[in-house]
């Protein structure tokens, strides 16, 4: 396929044609590297403005790829964020010299969105200070480059906790507010982006603006869930809550459909504080349910537990034994399940995180398990986000794709409570346009396990998952970089063009995160 060079500020031809057949292999849409025109003048301008820029292998090598490890690109130079004022000077110089600026928080994107293909890489983690904790108002003001985990460390000293954040420790607050942020309590508390009360933003032209639902609301609506298109988040005021350990309960299913029905039943009835599904392929489907208090758990036991169709650990083991005894040709699968159980389960029960039967610091427990058992130098995690009623179909179809492409994989499903008053935030975001009440997300994560797969294989797999999204009218948690060919297919030209017009007004030289969406 021929990929056409795209001038900044213009719409390129969509490399995935609207009438393309489902399931065909597609080319990646890695952005072309910026050619470096005027770089030296730009460097001189930054120097005059007192903005420190680092060049060379050591400075740039850290940013060669993102967590996905399939998109590689190098910036010309790196700026470590130190203040809104410094970022403002950087963006003003970048606008006048037309130098692309790619913003990076934790770099946990998997489609190359936080990889710089030339230009400046702005590393936001240099702005990692907690500015103020208001224990009475239950809010925190923090610099936006901070990792959620570092924020949690500081909040815990005040016996507080954030509301919800990705289960991976090293995503940043700013990067997450621009993308979504889904936790196992999102079915109750919403996504991380919904926690933000106000933001300090540096616009693509270098203005430093405070925004919220009442102050500069248009900017707030575009920056929240905006994939870094309309400004750089430099500080955020977030809601927080008192810290609690949690009581975690597991139910096991052999049917995805049944487990999802039960998950949605619990969410719809506010029956638990945390809920989600984590699977080993579609063989062992674990519905996890957790509670912040004994009272909430007691209500669950009284009203909802008996309605769940999952088994306890022992009952499920018996069920599995029977299943595989009747299907001896599937003994390899049985062995894999056994081995996986033996490796992964103890991670969730490490004594140093358990006190009186309750789990402390769940994000650490989950995150360490995630990196240890799912992490690798390449992580391919396409996902689908749908309305509640389309979710089972999306997961079942995605599961069939996983089976086709990989021997082993995991599915991770969670609900996201929507805030009707935040509807303007959700436009052209991971929240599907037709979702009401809750949206549901499923990650399809193949186990790479040291295997070697071609980038084409990964890309074909991702395309097959993303095609389901187009077909169902769903959305995606990670859209950008290499899958930006899907943006128009899923949202339609009218909406994308409207956002592009806004983007061009806000960012005349199209320098800020320019390869992510448009």
């Amino acid at each position, binding site marked *: 396929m021929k990929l056409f060079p795209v001038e900044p500020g213009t719409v390129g031809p969509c490399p995935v044609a609207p009438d393309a057949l489902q399931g065909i292999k597609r080319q990646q849409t890695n952005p072309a590297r910026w050619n470096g025109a005027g770089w030296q003048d730009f460097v001189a301008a930054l120097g005059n403005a007192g903005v420190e820029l*680092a060049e*060379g*292998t*050591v*400075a*740039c*090598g*850290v940013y*060669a*790829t*993102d*967590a996905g*490890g399939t998109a590689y690109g190098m910036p010309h130079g790196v700026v*470590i964020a130190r203040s809104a004022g410094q970022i403002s000077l950087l963006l003003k110089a970048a606008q006048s010299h037309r130098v692309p600026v790619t913003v990076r928080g*934790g*770099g946990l994107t998997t489609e190359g969105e936080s990889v710089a293909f030339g230009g400046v890489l702005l*590393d936001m*983690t*240099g*702005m*990692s200070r907690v500015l103020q904790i208001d224990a009475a108002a239950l809010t925190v003001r923090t610099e936006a480059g901070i*990792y959620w*985990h*570092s924020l*949690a*460390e*500081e909040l*815990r*000293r*005040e016996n507080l906790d954030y509301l919800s954040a990705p289960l991976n*420790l*090293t995503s940043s607050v700013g990067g997450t507010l621009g993308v979504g942020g889904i936790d196992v309590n999102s079915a109750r508390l919403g996504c991380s982006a919904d926690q933000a009360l106000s933001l300090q933003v540096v616009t693509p032209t270098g203005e430093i603006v405070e925004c919220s639902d009442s102050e500069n609301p248009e900017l707030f609506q575009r920056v929240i869930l905006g994939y870094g298109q309309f400004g750089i988040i430099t500080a955020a005021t977030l809601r927080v809550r008192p810290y609690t350990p949690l009581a975690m309960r597991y139910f096991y299913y052999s049917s995805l459909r049944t487990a999802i029905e039960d998950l949605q039943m619990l969410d719809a009835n506010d029956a638990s504080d945390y809920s989600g599904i984590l699977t080993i392929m579609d063989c062992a489907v674990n519905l996890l349910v957790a509670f912040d208090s004994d009272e909430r758990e007691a209500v669950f036991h009284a009203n909802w537990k008996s309605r769940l169709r999952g088994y306890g650990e022992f009952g499920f083991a018996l069920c599995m034994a029977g299943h595989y005894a009747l299907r001896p040709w599937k003994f390899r699968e049985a*062995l894999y399940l*056994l*081995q996986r159980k*033996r490796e992964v389960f103890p991670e969730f029960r490490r*004594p*140093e*995180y358990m006190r009186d039967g309750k789990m402390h*610091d769940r994000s*650490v427990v989950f*995150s*360490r398990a995630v*990196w*240890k058992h799912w*992490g*690798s*130098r390449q*992580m391919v995690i396409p996902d689908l986000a749908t309305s509640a009623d389309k979710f089972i179909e999306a997961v079942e179809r995605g599961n069939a794709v996983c089976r086709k492409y990989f021997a082993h994989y995991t599915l991770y499903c969670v609900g996201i409570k929507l805030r009707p008053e935040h509807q303007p935030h959700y436009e052209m975001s991971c929240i599907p346009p037709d979702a009401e009440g809750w949206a549901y997300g499923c990650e399809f994560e193949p186990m790479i396990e040291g295997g070697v797969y071609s980038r084409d294989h990964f890309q074909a797999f991702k395309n097959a998952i993303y095609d389901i999204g187009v077909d169902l009218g769903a959305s995606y948690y990670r859209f950008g970089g290499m899958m930006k060919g899907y943006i128009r297919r899923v949202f339609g030209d009218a909406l994308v063009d409207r956002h592009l017009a806004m983007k061009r007004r806000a960012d005349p030289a199209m320098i800020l995160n320019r390869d992510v969406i448009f």
Partner: protein
Amino acid sequence: MPAFLARAPAAPRDYAACSGCSLCLLVCPMWRGSHDPRLTPEGLAKGLQSGATVRELAAPIVACSLCGACDPVCPERIDLSGLIMDLRLRSANSLPPNSPQPAVIVELSARLHQAAGAAPAAGVVSRSAPVLLPGPELRADPALLARVQALLGLAVFDDDGADIALALELGVEIPQQRLHGFLDSLRGHTIVAADGLLLRQLRRWLPGSQRMGLGPALSTRAAVRSNLVPSDLYVIEPRAFHGDYERMVGYYDRLQRETGCSLSLDLQRIAIPAASSGLAQKLGLAAGDDVQAKWMLQGRKPARIVVESLADRAAFERVCDLPVVHLAELGEDPQMMQKFRHAFG
């Protein structure tokens, strides 16, 4: 367990395995002080992956305090502090032959070579008896050393490998003869070592041996343990802790449950290094900073700080007015006080 399910503990991997997850950065005191990704183990691993030279990576190699906090958190099992020690050694070896060396290094090299040539110390301690390797800081405080000995009932081993520990720290080549002489003298003994870095290496060099850090050795004593109270902040010596993480995290978890004291662990159950000093501080070329000790106290209100290491005591005494006591000072066993009256003042 069926053999096919049993997996041998995996060997450490090298920097090529780094996936860029950044977990190591969260616990790294260099990062806390700088918020500069170049001063992190991840920056180092990624720099190496990108073909950076040892010289280009000098900043993190020099600034690292070898606290070892990054090792247990790395999901790819990269021996990060080992890598940094290795790079220190390589950077020293890659200097032009006549380039000026700090006096400490010149003097240490001479000492190591002298010790390599010397006959092994005559065995004062019988084989198999437990021995104490106190290290220079504890030796410099004879009263405290006497308390430690009294509590543990241990003889001080004449050759406590202080030169070897310092060589590991500074990246100075250890003559094979010196190393083998030292290790041979320790074979068969149960070892209690105050220096966490030396202990970490002994774990590799003498895999079958019985070893223990000073902290666990002292805190298992009833006379010490019974004096730990919930209002104490117990500061773990990080190198020994991270060098034997899986065992130690369990040990201190039990200690915490039994005594109620709070521990100097972060939410990942990694020991926050209080006195974090890189090469420049070790060589006396720069003053240590107190960022870590201050962070450890932020939002905490202990009545007393209990330390395992004397370096930590100094760090806390600089940043707060709270009483800071060494673990050995908690043991007030009457019989022992009688026997070692001089040590209890």
